[in-house]
């Protein structure tokens, strides 16, 4: 029976953490209580994108998009909307400018500007129900290649589409498939890299949680093209929900004969195992990932030989990223030309980006390649919160770099970002405003990479901590005159002399902030942090004119550094005792606490 309304409630990790399961239960109870069980269906979906607004839910067919829903809202939604047909306006997502009711998903710029290919099903189908996936032409592409195409034709179609690896480097996918197909030997493997370790990246997680079959189908098609019968998905252990959904999807696909022996009675066999990482960023690097899959320390080894020739257990191995596999079925069904009609000449298709940091709509977005940074951050992302000024965006995580405001109109593709000293990377976009210190940002990333270095080669093992130490002393206000030069020299050496991509790219955040924000480094050397973020370089001060003696700051200060008598302003901060935690500034109702340069 066809239901009158479908209520799609997001069960992505972020919404679950905001108690979307409790909202679902409350809604189910109310629907039942109002006798609507036959008319209204609740579907739990994967990530819909706007994580910051969770729990979110979408009602079909009328398109009402509810945000920040709580279990207490359930009765009103069911009563007013599902029963009487009047959407609950106070919970609807409205555009920030016009506060206009978003009755159609299309009217919210967050969705209107996007082009969903890889994430097409995410947020629309129940990821734990294989039939819903099949209803969206799921496994039709696998059926097509197994019955109508030769393995070579499959690899050629992917090559003709111009699809490039979404795991960071952008290597042409069809070409890689061709290498593995052409490698000698009867035994080959297909591996899906789901280690997603870049800080600020969560695209792969969303796809695995929201549409796991799309990844499995992509892997099976790849296996047919390269001649493999066995595959692995290496998922980081930090993603237990993704692991569960993938395992459930694997079991369902096996039950229906879509994976396993003699798939769809075609004689082709392919099965997939899930493997869990154990908290090592470097395992995302393909040779380290292979070592880890084999049960060893996850340390990279020199290439060549490339995994396509000598990979898992010494056999030819195809390694692709989650999102890369997610594109495959669409290319097979719609053709290489269709794929090329999206995006740019050198980078066809779409890309999923994860917006985080100082941006209004944090979450996942998918846009055609060639979309500008401005469209992404200001139109889809809704701009910078609290009317603050955009300062820079970090793309490519710890391997990438920052891009300042003057390049906001750059169309995003692999080459354009590289020209700006950054990289596409896996698709994390961390937005920063004027309150963020670029030197401190570089320090954050170096802390990460120095900590994650596997220690195998000297430039990375010794060089990154050396760079970090310099950054630490600069942000502490102890920088020396030649520190900037030293950073540049060290960075260049580490880039050229390191064994794997981790070391080869780790200096990028420092080098790119030096390229665009060198003056901030120089200011730190004379004791000034213009963003007022480096605590060693600032002091808190109570403006005697603005202080009303309300006593709130004195009571809130964790170290008792504020003196004053209630009703008898001004209060004053003891600079020696102050730990610069900023609590007083947060609690002052009169905005009397200011941050000044320490010197």
């Amino acid at each position, binding site marked *: 029976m066809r239901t009158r309304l479908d209520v799609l409630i997001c069960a992505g*990790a*972020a919404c*679950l*953490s*905001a108690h979307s399961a409790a909202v679902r239960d409350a809604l189910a109870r109310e629907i039942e209580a109002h006798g609507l069980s036959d008319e209204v269906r609740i579907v739990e979906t994967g990530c819909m994108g*706007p*994580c*910051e607004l*969770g729990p979110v839910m979408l009602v079909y067919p009328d398109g009402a998009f509810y945000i920040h829903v709580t279990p207490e809202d359930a009765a009103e939604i069911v009563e007013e909307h599902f029963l009487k047909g009047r959407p609950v306006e106070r919970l609807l997502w409205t555009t920030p400018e016009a506060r206009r009711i978003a009755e159609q998903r299309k009217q919210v710029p967050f969705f209107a500007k996007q082009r969903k290919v890889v994430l097409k099903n995410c947020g629309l189908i129940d990821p734990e129900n294989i039939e819903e996936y099949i209803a969206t032409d799921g496994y039709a592409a696998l059926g097509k290649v197994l019955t109508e195409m030769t393995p070579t034709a499959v690899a050629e179609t992917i090559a003709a589409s111009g699809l490039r690896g979404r795991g960071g480097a952008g290597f042409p996918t069809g070409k890689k498939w061709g290498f593995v197909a052409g490698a000698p030997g009867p035994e080959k493997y297909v591996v899906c890299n789901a280690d*997603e*370790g*870049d*800080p*600020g*990246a*969560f695209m792969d*997680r969303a796809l695995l949680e929201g549409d796991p079959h799309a990844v499995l189908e992509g892997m099976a098609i790849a296996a047919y093209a390269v001649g493999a019968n066995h595959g692995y998905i290496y998922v980081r*252990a*930090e*993603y*237990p*929900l993704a692991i569960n959904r993938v395992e459930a999807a694997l079991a369902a696909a096996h039950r229906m004969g879509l994976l396993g022996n003699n798939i769809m009675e075609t004689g082709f066999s392919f099965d997939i195992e899930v*493997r*869990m*990482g*154990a*908290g*090592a*960023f470097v395992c995302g690097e393909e040779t380290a990932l292979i070592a*880890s*899959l*084999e*049960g*060893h*320390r*996850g*340390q990279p080894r020199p290439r060549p030989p490339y995994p396509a020739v000598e990979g898992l257990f010494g056999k030819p191995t195809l390694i692709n990223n989650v999102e890369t596999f997610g594109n495959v079925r669409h290319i097979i069904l719609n053709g290489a030309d269709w794929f090329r009609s999206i995006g740019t000449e050198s980078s066809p298709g779409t890309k999923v980006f*994860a*917006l*985080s*940091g*100082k941006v209004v709509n*944090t*979450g*996942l977005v998918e846009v055609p390649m060639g979309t500008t940074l401005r469209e992404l951050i200001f139109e889809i992302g809704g701009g910078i919160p609290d009317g603050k000024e955009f300062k820079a965006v*970090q793309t490519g995580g710890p391997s990438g770099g920052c891009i300042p405001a003057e390049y906001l109109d750059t169309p995003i593709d692999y080459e354009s970002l590289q020209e700006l000293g950054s990289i596409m990377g896996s698709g*994390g976009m*961390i937005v*920063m405003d004027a309150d*963020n210190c670029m030197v401190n*940002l570089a320090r*954050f*990333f170096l802390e*990460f990479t120095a*900590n*994650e270095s*596997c220690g195998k080669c000297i430039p990375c093992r010794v060089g990154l901590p050396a760079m970090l130490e310099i950054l630490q002393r600069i942000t502490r206000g102890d920088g020396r005159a030649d520190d900037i030069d030293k950073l540049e020299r060290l960075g260049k050496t580490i880039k050229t002399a390191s064994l794997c991509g981790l070391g080869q790219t780790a200096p990028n955040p420092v080098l790119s902030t030096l390229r665009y924000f060198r003056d901030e480094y120089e200011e730190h050397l004379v004791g000034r942090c213009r963003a007022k973020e480096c605590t060693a370089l600032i002091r808190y001060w109570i403006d005697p004119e603005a202080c009303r003696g309300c006593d709130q700051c004195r009571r809130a200060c*964790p170290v008792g550094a504020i003196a004053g008598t209630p009703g008898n302003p001004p209060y004053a901060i003891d600079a020696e005792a102050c730990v610069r*935690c*900023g609590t007083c500034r947060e609690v002052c109702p009169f905005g009397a606490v200011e941050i000044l340069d320490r010197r």
Partner: protein
Amino acid sequence: MNRLIEKYAPTRENLLDILHALQDDNPHNYLTTAALRQAADYVGIPLSEVMSTATFYSMFSLKPRGRHIIRICESPPCLLLGAESVLTALQEMLEVQVGETTTDGAFTLETTSCLGACGVAPAMMIDDQLYGNLSRERLAEIIDRVRSSDEAR
């Protein structure tokens, strides 16, 4: 004694999964020497090899930990949105430093690299459960909830 790990074939490639299973089974969330030896015997490699592999990965602990592992994200997206003060608040609330376990043995506080929850930063995980949009108030509420569900057990 091997019941827990028998579902894995006794080969080196299953070592990480086996170590995860043994660690998860331990009430103090760590790998005992006996467990490491068990894994070594099971897959047929020297104990030193198992040690060397286990110590490479940050999620394996060779020291006893609390019943619950709190892993708070210290990646740039979370740091930009106040993860440092969330960490300070947690340290005050639990009276432990990073790497330490509360005196009642309930929580071990650890930091982690990105949890992929940047859309709801700052974020943390307690065991397998993700928590986002953390603030001082939310933290207190979450810790209380975990504590009281422990007591109910």
